[in-house]
C-alpha cells in the first residue's frame, strides 16, 4: 500500500507538471485557471455544490459518490447546451432554487431514494452548467477551461463530503443541519434577487 501511495505521489507530480508547460501554448494556462476559478467565483454555485457533497455524506453509500458523479456530468451537459446556444429559461432562478432545495434537504436530513436524490441533483446541475457554459470567456482554450472547471467543481463536492464526515457524531449531525439551513436561507436570498432583479 505504501508503494501505491508513492506511485500515486510520483504520478501526481507527472500529471501536474505539465500545467506550467501550458504556457507554451499561449492561452491554455489562462483557460485552465479561468475554468478553475469560475465555479468558485459565485457564492450561489459554491453553496449548491458543497450542499451536494454534504447531502451525499448524510445519505451514505452509494449516494456519497453517486451524487457527486451525477452533478459534474449533468452540469457539463448543461454547459454544452450553453455553449451551443440552446435556450434554457430561468437559469438564475434555477441556481438560487438549487441552493434553497439542496440546503433544505441537508437541513431536514431528507432521505429519498437514490433515484429521486440523483434526479433532483441532476435537474439543478443543468442550470449551473448552463450558466458556466454561456459565460465561457472569449478566446479561451475550451479544453483547458473545461479541465479546470470540472476539477474545481469536483473539489467543491469533496469539500462538502469532507464536511459531511462529522455526520457520525450527534453534534456533527446538528452542525450539518445548521449549515444546511444557512445554505437554504442563502438560496432563498438568491431566488429573491434573481426574481426581483
Amino acid at each position: 500500500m505504501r508503494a501505491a501511495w508513492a506511485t500515486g505521489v510520483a504520478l501526481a507530480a507527472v500529471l501536474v507538471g505539465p500545467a506550467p508547460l501550458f504556457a507554451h501554448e499561449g492561452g491554455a494556462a489562462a483557460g485552465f485557471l479561468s475554468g478553475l476559478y469560475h465555479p468558485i467565483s459565485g457564492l450561489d454555485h459554491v453553496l449548491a455544490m458543497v450542499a451536494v457533497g454534504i447531502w451525499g455524506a448524510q445519505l451514505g453509500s452509494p449516494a456519497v459518490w453517486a451524487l457527486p458523479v451525477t452533478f459534474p456530468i449533468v452540469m457539463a451537459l448543461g454547459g454544452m447546451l450553453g455553449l451551443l446556444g440552446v435556450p434554457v429559461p430561468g437559469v438564475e432562478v434555477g441556481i438560487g432554487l438549487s441552493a434553497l432545495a439542496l440546503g433544505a434537504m441537508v437541513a431536514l436530513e431528507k432521505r429519498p431514494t437514490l433515484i429521486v436524490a440523483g434526479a433532483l441533483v441532476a435537474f439543478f446541475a443543468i442550470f449551473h452548467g448552463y450558466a458556466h457554459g454561456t459565460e465561457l470567456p472569449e478566446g479561451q482554450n475550451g479544453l483547458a477551461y473545461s479541465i479546470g472547471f470540472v476539477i474545481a467543481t469536483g473539489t467543491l463536492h469533496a469539500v462538502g463530503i469532507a464536511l459531511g464526515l462529522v455526520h457520525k457524531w450527534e453534534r456533527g449531525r446538528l452542525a450539518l443541519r445548521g449549515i444546511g439551513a444557512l445554505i437554504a436561507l442563502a438560496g432563498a436570498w438568491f431566488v429573491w434577487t434573481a426574481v426581483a432583479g
Partner: protein
Amino acid sequence: MSAVLGKGLYLHLVTTGLGPLFDGIGHVLVTPEDLLPLIALALLAGLGGRAYARRVLFTLPAAWLVGGLVGLALGWSAPLAVTAVSFLLIGGLVALDRPMDERVGVALAIALGLMHGQMSGAEMGAAGLGTTGLLGSVACLFVLVSLIAGLVVSLERPWTRIAVRVAGSWIVAIGLLYFGWTFAT
C-alpha cells in the same frame, strides 16, 4: 459542421531543446486531447485487473506507433471533434466500472491507439519531429500507462476504486464540455 470538421490539426508541440525524442515525450504531456483519454484507458485497464492491464500496456503503444506512422506518411489528421468521443466513451466505461470482455477492452485500446497515434503522427510530421519524436511519445505513454494502471491494480480499499470511477466521470464531464466547445467555435 464542415467548419468544425475542418479543424484537424492542433499543434501542441513543445521545444525542449533536447531534440525530437524529448519533444515527442513533451508532446504527450502537454496535449490534453491525447493525455486525458490515455489516462482514462489506463484507469480502465487497472480496473480490469492485472491480465487486462498487461495486454493494454503493450497493445496501446503498439497501436499508437502504427497509427503514428500512418499519420506521418499521410500528413492528414482526423477531425478535432473525434477526440471528444474518446473522452466520453472511455471515461464513461471507467465511471460505470462494469465487467468487460477482455477482447473488447483490447480492441478499444487498439482503436484509441490508432486514432490518437494517427493524429499525433500527423502533428509530428508537420513539426518535422519524424519517427524519433513519435518514438518519444510512445515511450512516454508506455510509462504513463504502466504507472497509472499499476497504481489502480494495486488499490485494495473499496473507496479507492470509487475514486477511480469519479475520475472517469470527470473525464466524461470534460469531454461533454469539450464537445460543446468544439461545435460552438
